[in-house]
């Protein structure tokens, strides 16, 4: 580089540089090359690496892994947990039931119409067993559709006077699959806070926006609908694609009362919200023919977008169904998870349901008149109050006042139940998963009225309950 200094004019500098480049020794060039590369590297590399500093060494990682102690898979359950030791029923759970070795009159099973022990139903199931065996060995899509399923769907649709019905192989899965088939993320569901657990799970699976309204409080529902309306005006583009639904039960499992359907229909058209109706308890119970709450109120069934019910109560079989217009129901055949991805209903259970439906259709009055006996006989027990409509066949007996804690209340009610059970009346407490329920109902004794119970038996149950309450609560 010394040669550069000898340069005379600016224009020569470049020429001389090139010349010097040629003349310089090889080691010099290599050294300079390395220096230049070094500078470039320094320019482009960061002064320090954030990443490297926080990175754990392999040893530290191993230590962390070594240290980590998970919780046990399940916490131990105390031996005296109120739900651990089940009542064991020997033989069929019919009108006369043997619970824990003791013969009782059944006031606990939802066998409203007494079809569980019906000979006709049994022989229909037997015939089906002979022809089809037990299982279906496949989902509906893959050779799990039997002619009996199609027949049952047709019969249910006809019975309910709707266009189409779809059956599921499990009652719980019916509404729990139906809701997420329509309501997706971003959609809005207005739901009664007393809604049963299956509805709650369906809503959770749908990942929709859930708005709870106070039980059977139409003013509260309308308040929420209005709120949503003003929300929609702010963002009409979003509102145009946000589906909305109201989900209610015909006869509430948790409260024993019915939904005010006529008002709900008014709100439906006013605010353009679709109605999904869960009728597991009201199907076969309400209305002159047992078609449920729509028949009870004399409402056009087409005003309800979707009706879901199980076949495990009145029909005394297993499974559930949804019915409504084909436009709506057919969608579940590809989108109802519990329908598409589960084995179909065993044919013998479908056959039993068909036969039960036949019996219901043939002479509804024999059942329904008997069913709506005055269940008020059960009322008037000091310390216990009846919750639910007088014509509801599934009532709750709650403590008039709590004895301090839920745990105490449950224990007291258990003693009442045990007292009755010892004297030949089978009852049960209504069971809930206390931590999972959205709005946990107070502890209660469930009283189920069926057509098979005679007036004397009802009176006996009432007097026994009075006695029990007397001895336990006072």
């Amino acid at each position, binding site marked *: 580089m010394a040669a550069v200094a000898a340069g005379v004019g600016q224009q020569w500098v470049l020429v001389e540089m090139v010349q010097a480049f040629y003349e310089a020794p090889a080691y010099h060039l290599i050294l300079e090359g390395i220096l230049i590369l070094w500078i470039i590297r320094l320019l482009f590399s960061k002064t320090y690496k954030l990443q490297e500093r926080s990175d754990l060494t392999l040893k530290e990682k191993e230590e962390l892994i070594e240290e*980590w102690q998970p919780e046990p898979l399940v916490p131990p359950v105390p031996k005296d947990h109120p739900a651990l030791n*089940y009542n064991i029923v020997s*033989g069929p759970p019919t009108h006369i039931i043997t619970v824990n070795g003791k013969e009782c009159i059944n006031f606990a099973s939802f*066998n409203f119409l007494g079809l569980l022990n019906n000979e006709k139903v049994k022989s229909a199931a037997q015939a089906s*067993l002979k022809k*089809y065996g*037990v299982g279906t060995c496949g989902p509906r*899509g893959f050779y799990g559709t039997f002619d009996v399923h199609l027949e049952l769907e047709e019969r249910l649709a006809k019975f309910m006077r709707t266009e189409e019905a779809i059956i599921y192989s499990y009652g719980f899965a019916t509404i729990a699959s139906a809701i997420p088939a329509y309501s997706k993320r971003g959609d809005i569901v207005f739901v009664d806070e007393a809604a049963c657990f299956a509805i709650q799970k369906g809503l959770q699976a749908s990942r929709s926006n859930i708005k709870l309204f106070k039980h059977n409080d139409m003013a509260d529902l309308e308040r929420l609908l209005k709120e949503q309306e003003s929300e929609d005006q702010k963002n009409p583009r979003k509102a145009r694609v946000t589906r909305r639904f109201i989900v209610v039960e015909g006869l509430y499992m948790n409260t024993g009362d019915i939904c005010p359907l006529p008002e709900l229909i008014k709100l439906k058209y006013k605010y353009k919200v679709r109605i999904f109706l869960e009728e597991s308890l009201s199907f076969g119970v309400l209305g002159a023919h047992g078609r449920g709450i729509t028949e009870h109120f004399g409402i056009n069934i087409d005003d309800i977008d979707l009706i879901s019910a199980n076949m495990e109560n009145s029909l005394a079989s297993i499974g559930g169904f949804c019915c409504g217009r084909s436009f709506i129901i057919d969608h579940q055949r590809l989108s109802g998870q519990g329908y598409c991805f589960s084995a179909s209903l065993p044919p013998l259970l479908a056959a039993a349901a068909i036969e039960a439906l036949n019996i219901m259709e043939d002479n509804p009055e024999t059942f329904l008149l008997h069913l709506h006996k005055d269940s008020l006989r059960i009322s008037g027990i000091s310390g216990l109050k009846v919750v639910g409509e007088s014509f509801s066949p599934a009532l709750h007996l709650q403590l008039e006042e709590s004895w301090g804690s839920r745990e105490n209340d449950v224990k007291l009610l258990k003693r009442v139940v045990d007292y009755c059970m010892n004297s030949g009346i089978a009852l049960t407490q209504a069971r809930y998963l206390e931590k999972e329920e959205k709005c946990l109902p107070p502890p209660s004794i469930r009283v189920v009225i069926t057509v098979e119970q005679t007036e004397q038996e009802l009176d006996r149950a009432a007097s026994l309950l009075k006695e029990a309450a007397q001895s336990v609560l006072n």
Partner: protein
Amino acid sequence: MANPSAVCNGHLHHHHHQKQNNLLKSGISKKNGIIKGTKKNGVSNGTLYKKPFIEHFEQAPMYVAVFTFVGFAVGTIFGYLRDFMRAWGLEKRNIAAEREQQKDFVPLYQDFENFYTRNLYLRIRDNWNRPICSVPGPQFDLMERVTDDYNWTFRFTGRTIKNVINMGSYNYLGFAETDVNALKTVTIELEKYGTGVCSTRQEMGTLDKHVELENLVAKFLGVEDAMVFGMGFATNSMNIPALVGKGCLILSDELNHTSLVLGARLSGATIRIFKHNNMQSLEKLLRDAIIYGQPRTHRKWRKIIILVEGIYSMEGSIVRLPEIVSLKNKYKAYLYLDEAHSIGAVGATGRGVVEYFGMSPNDVDVLMGTFTKSFGAAGGYIAGKKDLVDFLRTHSHSAVYATSMCPPVAEQIIRAMRCLMGLDGTTQGLQRVRQLEKNTRYFRRKLHEMGFIIYGNDDSPVVPLLLYMPGKIGAFARRMLEKNIGVVVVGFPATPITESRARFCVSAAHTREMLDTVLNALDELGDFLHLKYSRYSKSSHPELYEESRLED
């Protein structure tokens, strides 16, 4: 598709080479304690596996993927064209419509949501939901149906197609049967109990029959206790939320069944997905989870649970259980194993993948399975330690809110299980398990020899045969039905878009003649529809099929 044989030959060496490479790699990595899960070829891992573990996932030639996409593209273009014609009234609209009174509601379905259903699925809809009118045994009767409006609606002709060979039902051990003697006890119990229960397990729905079944299931599986549920799907979706919750981590195989996915979602736990049966992917997730804790807060995870299936019903693959158990022990995670398809179907005495790998049932924390398949009934179970089952008795969603299992169905499970355990005084159950194994190996071997690409484990009775192109789905199933064979075909979205397939479920009740009829039909149809894509010839891996093991 010109000169396919040349393509085959051209790739043969390359593939063989690759296979050796993979084997070599896995040999090396094994020493480091990391197990290389390779997707293409079988890997036998000598340290953990007591017998060779061979699975195939051969990739089709590139041109197949290209034509598959072309097929979908053509279908989509025609779909748009026809949607356009329907919109302008040039084609009749058959779609059920919204009520007049509710036209101004927010549409229940987005138009694009149903595009695929309307324009692609509809064309081949006749291949699903085919109604049957007999027991789903090795052969069944189908109700003949025809369509007058290109699959929009079906009309029954009133005729039945008799004695169709059933390659679709999950009747692995042939317990879907109507033999009067076999069903004797079921008949008795049906007469005694009726069909329903009308109550939940916790209220008034625990029958002596359920207790009997639960004790038998626990004994069959060799565990302390078991609980049974009325529906297999719900066994997963209603019990996983009881076991894990917020602050827990679920590691789930990417191909897990919808019920497991739903259960995981409902639990509120964080879900991370690992590649199908890929142990490296699983180990990385496990390590990262423990080292970095929960996202953002970096709190430690409360517990980590791995969800896997025994046999994957769309791939025919068997879970790499020994490796998963060693990983789970190393990282103190819990293992939930869904044996829906594997219980009864694999293992020397039909006790599922645990037995298949010669492991102890205590190696798995939660053993889940269904009764729908091998037992020809309905429902599911969860089995394991007494603590676990006691906890479920008190906390399972199903025990509290769902009607309990139908008693005659419970009896069907009992009688099938007793038969399998030899408690009925015969060896019939064992024979069924052996027959299934024999049938499976025979059927798989023949398909390999014919040059089809089939997926999965050599011992898996679920046999997926790759069809790839959408047009072949319909053609295949229809032509098989013409030959009196009922098959299941599956396409997107149940499979990846390029991997449409037919799935056979081999049964112990299939006779050699039935299987040969099916194989002959497949051979013929494979040539006609050009389905023999495999670039292995039989000689390239004769070690997989020892004749001596097949013919005893």
